């Protein structure tokens, strides 16, 4: 094992060609994961709440959407965005946004599932009590049910951030120079130390994802205190 290939290319792995060129490497991985996760959280809450609205066609639409997204591989969604976004906008779309769009659409479906489970976990009595005090149904959702549901779901959201961080590794397929792309580039250039390169990159992903997993477990213990 000879890890000089890592030390020689360390800044390249971490930030890509930045500041001379575009941001890449681990920094881009984290950027893609965070942006997609925040957007997917918004999308997931909207989808999750929409599946409780008293409007049947909308509920079917949401169910259909989540089923499709959860039934196909992420690679498919990435390729779809790669083909469809330029057609829809009638101009080339930056690869970063292709990937962010795909990750957001894909992860929203999983987030929606979490949000729905969260809404169901709020005791029925809460809803009834809120209605009895004279709140309107949307107020019950916005001020009583959703805040408690989201609080219960925080650990699951962190787990989803772990999944998204792992999923950003597929961005290299459309040429986004995040960590995995850099690893394949360095590997193609050097050709001599593939095991070292991929073990190192795996370790980098592991440090990030494992810390987040631990955070989610800690939050889960923390948030279960003082629970009804």
């Amino acid at each position, binding site marked *: 094992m000879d890890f000089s290939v890592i030390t020689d290319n360390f800044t390249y792995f971490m930030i890509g060609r930045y500041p001379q060129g575009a941001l890449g490497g681990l920094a881009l991985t984290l950027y893609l994961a965070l942006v997609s996760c925040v957007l997917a959280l918004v999308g997931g809450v909207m989808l999750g709440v929409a599946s409780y609205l008293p409007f049947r066609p909308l509920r079917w639409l949401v169910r259909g959407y989540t089923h499709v997204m959860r039934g196909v*591989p992420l690679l498919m969604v990435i390729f779809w965005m790669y083909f469809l976004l330029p057609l829809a906008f009638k101009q080339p779309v930056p690869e970063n946004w292709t990937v962010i769009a795909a990750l957001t659409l894909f992860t929203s479906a999983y987030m929606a599932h979490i949000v729905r489970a969260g809404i169901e976990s709020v005791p029925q009595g809460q809803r009834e009590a809120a209605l009895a005090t004279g709140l309107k149904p949307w107020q019950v959702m916005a001020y009583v049910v959703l805040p408690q549901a989201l609080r219960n779901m925080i650990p699951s959201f962190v787990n989803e951030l772990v999944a998204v961080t792992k999923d950003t590794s597929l961005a290299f397929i459309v040429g986004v120079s995040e960590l995995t792309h850099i690893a394949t580039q360095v590997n193609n250039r050097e050709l001599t130390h593939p095991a070292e390169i991929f073990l190192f990159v795996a370790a980098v992903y592991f440090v990030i994802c494992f810390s987040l997993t631990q955070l989610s477990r800690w939050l889960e213990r923390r948030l279960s205190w003082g629970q009804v």
Partner: protein
Amino acid sequence: MLNYQFDWRVVASGTYAEWLWQGLLLTLQLAALSCVLGFMLGLLVAIVRMSPVAPLRWLAQAYLEFIRNTPLVIQIFFWYFGAYEVLPQAVNDWLNQWRFEFVAAVIALTVYTSAFIAEDIRSGIRAVPREQMEAARSQGFGYLAAMRFVILPQAVRITVPPLIGQFLNATKNSSLAMTIGVAELTFQARQIESVAFKGLEAFTAATLIYLLVSLTITAVVSSYEQRYLRPGGVR
């Protein structure tokens, strides 16, 4: 919105339909192989994970955490590009008898799937109430007999739906094998795109095939749950 001429005939019959069919077969092969092998490995890891010897437990735990917290595509690249450096020569020679990209994909998917299956098995066993074991022991069953006749039959029933779900995950995960040139479904769709410039048709067809697989699996799981896991169902 779209300025694109669709031509569905290209993927509905002829060479390209044949490519998609071959791709689907390879996808299912990858998923089935990695699930069967992953189940064996996962069962082993789950048993070690619950063993009374602490260092063994830590080892299994480390394995699970490492596999679950690194991207699958990196693991595929590791096995495809890097494994020969760390494996003994005899193993390399043995592996090289087959198409190596397929072997590497199966190894990576097996290892990845095993970590998730191990957790499913463990939570299945833990889902059986502790009193069941105590009651069985008080009836005169030994530990192993209680496991064999009381705990495991219930645990297996609970574990079946997540295990079938793992087959669905393996089907979706196998799409990553295209990155090392395994000609599974996603690979074939992309191939059609680059040969015939019919990307949208090819990816629509591939998406529908994946959906068909996932709907089938979802239906199997829910009918199983209806039959065996609902209170009042056949017990």
